[in-house]
């Protein structure tokens, strides 16, 4: 695993267990003197692990992470990602997740987003508790027919496989058991 000249992982899905992630470039950092907040990144992965375990317990296994955490950025503010599920199961899934989550942070309701200490964007409750945002994605459907400039269908995950500001394609990590 190595960052390209743009500080991104080359496009692709990198399968890692949580333990592998903890020992990966993304936590330990490039060993070339690059400034890197390994302690903070390790903390974020510990937080991610708590949420991933909740997802696993309700049968969600396809979990991906992206955002600046999978980029060559010393101190990413958070971990972003998504998981795959059947939209028909969503209501049940959210309820099951919140049964085991004491602070009931499993929601994506925009009205529940709150600002945080001078940050430009308001954040979901899960971000405030864990510094992690995981969105549901409802499987690979036929798509919308809308394409981005790289020809990717603008299904939800495509938004995660590119940088959010310049829309450059990039690799992401799939968390495996």
């Amino acid at each position, binding site marked *: 695993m190595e960052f390209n000249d743009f*500080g991104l992982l080359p496009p692709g899905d990198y399968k890692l267990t949580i333990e592998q992630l903890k020992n990966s470039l993304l936590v330990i950092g490039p060993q070339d003197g690059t*400034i890197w*907040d390994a302690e903070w990144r390790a903390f974020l992965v510990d937080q991610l692990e708590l949420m991933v375990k909740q997802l696993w317990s309700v049968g969600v296994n396809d979990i991906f992470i992206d955002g600046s955490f999978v*980029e*060559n*950025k*010393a*101190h990413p503010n958070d971990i972003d990602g998504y998981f795959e599920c059947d*939209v*028909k199961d*969503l*209501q049940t899934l*959210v309820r099951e997740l919140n049964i085991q989550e004491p602070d009931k942070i499993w*929601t*994506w*309701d*925009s009205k529940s*987003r709150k600002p945080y*200490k*001078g*940050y*430009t*964007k*308001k954040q*979901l409750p899960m971000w405030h508790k864990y510094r992690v945002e995981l*969105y*549901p*994605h*409802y499987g690979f*459907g036929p798509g*919308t027919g*809308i394409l981005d*400039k790289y020809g990717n269908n*603008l299904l*939800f995950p495509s*938004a995660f496989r590119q940088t*959010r*500001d*310049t*829309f450059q394609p990039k690799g992401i990590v799939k968390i495996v058991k």
Partner: protein
Amino acid sequence: MIKTESAYREAVEKLNQDKEFIELEKKKFVEMGLDKEHIELAIQPYVSFHEQLKEEVEYYERTKRGEFDTVINLRTLGRTLIAYRIYIGMSQQELAEKLGVSASQVSRDERNEYYGATIERIQQIMDALNMVSVTKINPSDVVSA
């Protein structure tokens, strides 16, 4: 963080596409037979994601107008340095030349939002940008940072 006009235009275009996407998804969920409450729940992630991008676009627009958020305890100072460079219309290349470093160094520093930079380094950058920052110290019971 949106840093260029081209990225800004693309983000605005994406916002418009998002709206179309959300409407199409809604229709798909109706065809699947989901009830209204279920559909609202199912599109919430799209709406939140869309709103976040909208806030990024608005932040860029405020930056271009010279409207800066208060920096509390240096936490967002790195981001504000970038915002100020954007506001005065100086490119990363021009800043690099003023600082006597490579453009890729400035690009790297901005990607890291100046994480790990020394106070002296930050002062050099402020000088290169002709930026003035006024720090007002409040008792700790006034501002919680």
